[in-house]
């Protein structure tokens, strides 16, 4: 279980999170939505210690991880993987080497064994044929798929996806959605997904939380979001240019 309790975060004078509290149950898929710059990515980066809150607490499986030092976060990061918004593949390595890296570092696998395991992960996202390419030689969407494969190499219990379907074609986006669903149903993985992709949100999410002006506007089921009469929620869910949210 993941608990964000009263998280506050500001950058200079810009208050990004102003008392955000969310709980994600084990095996659940939570989508965090909100306008660009609302603080969704900022919030999820707190979970693996890439950002530290100004105040508030983060509890992971009953352990308060808020003020762990960098070294203390390494065991957390091994069980809680993150797929970044910009893929962040290492451009000096081939796609296969990118996926092999965590295996070689943490499971102390030999080159051949790690390559075999990495190819299996690349197959999950249909990228095994391009394994020997470098990240610069493929498109954004394909890079994102490899980043997902890399995040899954250590078989994490928790996965944070930061806009996993942005930039993907509809078929690839559907593959990612299926992958998130199968992670939940087959492996019981808890997923926190930051997304703007309404189709994915309403077909995959168990729960949705919307951040607006640094606070949680609504934390509920997809049904609750569809039926909400809150003007902000209605505008976002229906993708309307006019409404209380400034575009």
């Amino acid at each position, binding site marked *: 279980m993941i608990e964000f309790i009263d998280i506050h975060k500001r950058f200079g004078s810009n208050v990004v999170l102003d008392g955000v509290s969310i709980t994600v149950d084990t095996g659940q898929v939570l989508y965090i939505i909100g306008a660009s710059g609302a603080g969704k990515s900022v919030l999820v980066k707190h979970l*693996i*210690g*890439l950002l530290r809150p100004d105040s508030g607490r983060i509890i992971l499986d009953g352990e308060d991880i808020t003020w762990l030092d*960098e*070294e203390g*976060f*390494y*065991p957390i*990061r*091994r069980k809680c*993987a*993150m797929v*970044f918004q*910009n893929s*962040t*593949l*290492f*451009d000096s390595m081939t796609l296969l080497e990118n996926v092999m*890296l*965590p295996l070689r*570092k*943490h499971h102390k696998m030999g080159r051949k064994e790690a390559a075999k395991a990495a190819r299996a992960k690349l197959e999950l996202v249909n990228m095994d044929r391009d394994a020997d390419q470098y990240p610069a030689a493929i498109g954004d969407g394909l890079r994102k798929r490899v980043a997902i494969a*890399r995040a899954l190499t*250590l078989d994490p219990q928790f996965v944070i996806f930061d806009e996993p379907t942005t930039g993907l074609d509809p078929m690839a986006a559907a593959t990612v959605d299926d992958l998130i669903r199968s992670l939940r149903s087959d492996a019981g993985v808890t997923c926190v997904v930051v997304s703007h992709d309404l189709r994915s949100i309403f077909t995959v999410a168990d729960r949705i939380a919307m951040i607006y002006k640094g606070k949680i506007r609504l934390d509920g089921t997809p049904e609750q979001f569809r039926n909400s009469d809150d003007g902000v929620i209605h505008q976002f869910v229906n993708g309307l240019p006019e409404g209380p949210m400034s575009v």
Partner: protein
Amino acid sequence: MNGALKSLASSVGGAVLAIAETIGGAVTLLFRILRALFPPRYDAEGVWRSFYNVGVKSYPIVVMTALFVGAIMVIQTAFYVKKTGATGIIGYGVGFSVFAEIGPILIGLMFSGRVGANNTAELGTMVVTEQVDALRALAIDPLPYLVVPRFLAMLGMLTLLMVLGDLFAIVGAALTAQLLVGFHWRVLVADLLQSRLLDEFTMGLVKAACFGISISCISCYFGLAVRGGATGVGRAVNNSVVSNATAIFVIDFVVGYLYSL
């Protein structure tokens, strides 16, 4: 007048703070690197890769620099030797300058321009494209994985490259003496060997090792401290090149002074 003084004090203060921040950052990084070395905690594959990138790819520029350093020193020394007729000091003059002063400084500057600037740009780009955060997210500490291999490679390879540079500087000096100045190359080499310049040679290697340490720490420090996208990377590379060049002259002075005691 008062305003101008305040502005001057503010500029000087700002510059002093910036220098202190750079020195503090680089020295802190050096201590963190040393901590990672005892007991050894670094990426062995990365070390070999860095040795190749830093050493093998740098030797052409070092050889070229060294050949010209040797040639220039012969031409400069020959002018005085011909004027005074003291042909016995040509080997000593060339050897002293090449081993102890001009050789280490010029090779250090070329190395810093090629390897140090490249290192800052590479690490800076990794920071702004979140590749360093991605490493941290994969529970891989960037220090032993990215910084320590570069430190070992720059320390080891610049020292070795200095030996290579000294050798090629002598070749450059001998060729120039023979072909352009009218001294037989054997005279120059024999004089150089008789001059017993072991202290100068070791001084050059000590300088090279110190340059390697400072170039790695300064370039990694600026690379990892990049903020603000492509502009930030450009600014960091610029700061890294200037700081490395300054550090090379300061180290050259300090080591030279200590050897003179």
